[in-house]
């Protein structure tokens, strides 16, 4: 453990109104040498303006191919307590709901085996237990399993799926995001825990087009709730919003992307041409008391979203405009399996689903997974004449 050197740079980050991670590290450092060495190594990084971690070999726990990220200090002599500082990715519960009891159990286990530091949560959604030596990994996992916490994903596997708060607290939810998430997570435990794919694969579930888990930007499979019938309108409540000072014409009608709404200011009557509505949610967002999604609910499935490495970031693309989403979600699970199979067969190492579809073409993808081409899949048809006809198409 490092001598009790000062941390003048980090100390400055204890001031100010925003919660301070430095204060948190210091709290943990009271009890844990690893936290203390983390603090001092970080101070060193602030001085050097570079990180001091290096990648290590694969570490893990029995029966799992992922869920632990190995990390080693490149200054082990100075900071021995973080020479090995691996993190656990622990699968969070649906929509991040907890009882204080469960959280306390988690804290006890982590204080026993690790640094006492966590991320609540990681960007993928897991509970991140930040920093334990190799020797503590198995014992820590055994205690976690005792209290019913399993590992999340890492490496070339299905990553921990996540979902928005949905029906638990949101009137906009068109699908049961929490239940679907749990069901999918349980269905694909093997894929989650044992890397078997060309690369990582992510599933994120949002209850409506507001997409509060940002599924469209950061998951290979984006499931987004929607409806097929008409927006439900409560005229009296619409009038109330107007009376309470909302300028329905300029704030709602004029911002409707499809211009399918009309507002009769005199009669305080809003009319919607639902056939032209694209369900963007704007009007409902502004008047939740007056407008609600329709009753015939389901989800739009989009695939291919990812960060930029290596060919540039992708947003997920619509491949199924509407799918009913009821337990046991067989249709969805089978589609996921079929797509994984195709990806597994054709994907190069480190090639995400979206990149593979780009390389082999949407046509090949749709054919392989048996989805019919529909205009909802595209923003616009091709502008180039380079369609390669298959001999059987040319009669």
């Amino acid at each position, binding site marked *: 453990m490092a001598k009790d050197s000062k941390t003048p740079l980090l100390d400055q980050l204890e001031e100010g109104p925003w919660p301070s991670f430095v204060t948190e590290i210091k709290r943990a450092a009271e009890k844990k040498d690893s936290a203390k060495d983390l603090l001092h190594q970080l101070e060193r990084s602030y001085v050097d303006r570079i990180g001091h971690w290096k990648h290590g070999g694969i570490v893990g726990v029995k029966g799992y191919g992922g869920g632990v990220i190995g990390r080693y200090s490149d200054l082990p002599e100075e900071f021995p307590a973080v020479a090995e500082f691996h993190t656990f990715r622990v699968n969070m519960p649906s929509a991040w709901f907890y009882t204080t009891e469960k959280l306390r159990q988690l804290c006890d286990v982590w204080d026993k085996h690790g640094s006492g530091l966590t991320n609540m949560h990681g960007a993928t959604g897991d509970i991140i237990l930040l*920093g334990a030596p190799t020797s503590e990994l198995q014992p820590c996992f055994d205690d976690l399993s005792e209290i019913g916490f399993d590992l999340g994903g890492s490496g070339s596997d299905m990553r921990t799926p996540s979902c928005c708060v949905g029906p638990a607290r949101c009137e906009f939810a068109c699908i049961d995001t929490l239940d679907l998430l749990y069901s999918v997570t349980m269905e694909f435990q093997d894929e989650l825990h044992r890397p078997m794919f060309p690369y990582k694969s992510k599933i994120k579930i949002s209850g409506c087009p507001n997409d509060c888990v940002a599924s469209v930007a950061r998951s290979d499979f984006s499931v987004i709730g929607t409806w097929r019938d008409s927006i439900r309108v409560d005229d009296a409540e619409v009038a109330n919003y107007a009376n309470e000072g909302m300028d329905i014409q300029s704030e709602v009608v004029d911002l409707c992307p499809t211009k399918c709404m009309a507002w009769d200011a005199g009669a305080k009557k809003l009319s919607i041409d639902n056939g032209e509505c694209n369900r963007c949610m704007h009007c409902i967002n502004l008047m939740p008391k007056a407008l609600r999604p329709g009753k015939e609910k389901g989800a739009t499935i989009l695939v291919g979203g990812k960060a930029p490495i290596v060919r540039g970031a992708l947003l997920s693309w619509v491949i199924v405009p509407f799918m009913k989403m009821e337990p046991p979600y067989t249709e969805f699970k089978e589609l996921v399996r079929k797509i994984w199979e195709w990806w597994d067969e054709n994907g190069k190492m480190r090639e995400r689903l979206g990149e593979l579809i780009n390389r082999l073409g949407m046509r090949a993808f749709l054919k392989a997974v048996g989805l019919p081409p529909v205009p909802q899949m595209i923003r616009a048809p091709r502008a180039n004449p380079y369609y390669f006809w298959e001999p059987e198409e040319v009669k």
Partner: protein
Amino acid sequence: MAGKTDFGPPFYKDLLPPVVLKNYGQWKYHERVKPGVLKHVAESGDELYTVRVGSGRLVSTDWIRDVCGIADQFCGGHLRFTSRHNLEFLVSDKEKVEPLIAHLKEQGFAVGGTGHAISNPVHTQGWIHCHTPATDASGIVKAVMDDLYEYFADSKLPAYCRISLACCLNMCGAVHCSDIAILGIHRKPPHINHDTVRAKCEIPNVIAACPTGAIRPDPKEKSLTVNEEKCMYCGNCYTMCPGMPLADPTGDGVSIWVGGKISSARTPPKFSRLAIPFLPNNPPRWPEVTDAVRNIVETWASHAHKHERMGEWIDRIGWERFFDLTGIPFTVQLIDDFTLASETFRSTPAFKW
């Protein structure tokens, strides 16, 4: 039950507050009572108040115990976290809302982040735990949020403004669709330590790991060389080989991206686009970054229409106008030269001076 595997996460129903269980899927509408406080009303008439609290995300077990204590006192032992790492206290009894808020403020918690506010920046590991960062994550986020705190605590912006940070272009923060993205970038290829390469690295694997094929064997040195023109600083080689560190105090820093969006409200999701190609790493408070972010936020806030997101505002006024309103210099780095570059060029004489 040690040795047991694949049992999955805790079952969500066991963790939901009674009011949620009772009204699950039966929520009727919500109101934004005031900054940081949401009120959801169910078909049954039940009310659920949500008090949102900012979190540094990197928290100690003591902090978790603290918030559990508060949840026991005011929320029947239930709480949740949001997709942006905020903490939410769920109160079914209206009477408890104000006392809870008072208690939170007294304990120094940050209440806010709802509605047209700047919520918690999604961010990543940085110098805390990753091996390829070009900057720190938690430190910049702390500095930026201290500076913009008023916009978290109050809900006074034209629309949502989502700030995200990722510490290298792997973009774990998935910052690429944020109103404002702060992205750590390396600008120098890895410097090769031949001894370490010889000692620790499997040459063929390292070569294979490079997405741009920039790495070639260096037979003379029994090591590797990097074709600097091809390197795009992704760090994959360093992941395979500790002898090729990318990190460099002058080469590394931060870039600023603007105008991204995730929701489909009004306009479809959009990528964030490069506005400032490089700012230096200047810990502990990254003043160049906090100034740049504040300038963008406030220029937008003072010009955008109500409900107009950053990217919607820019699409309306045009990028040429964005650069002159913000006073951000337009430099060659902003012009795309990657695979879809031609889609970003302007093919009309109709633009603004």
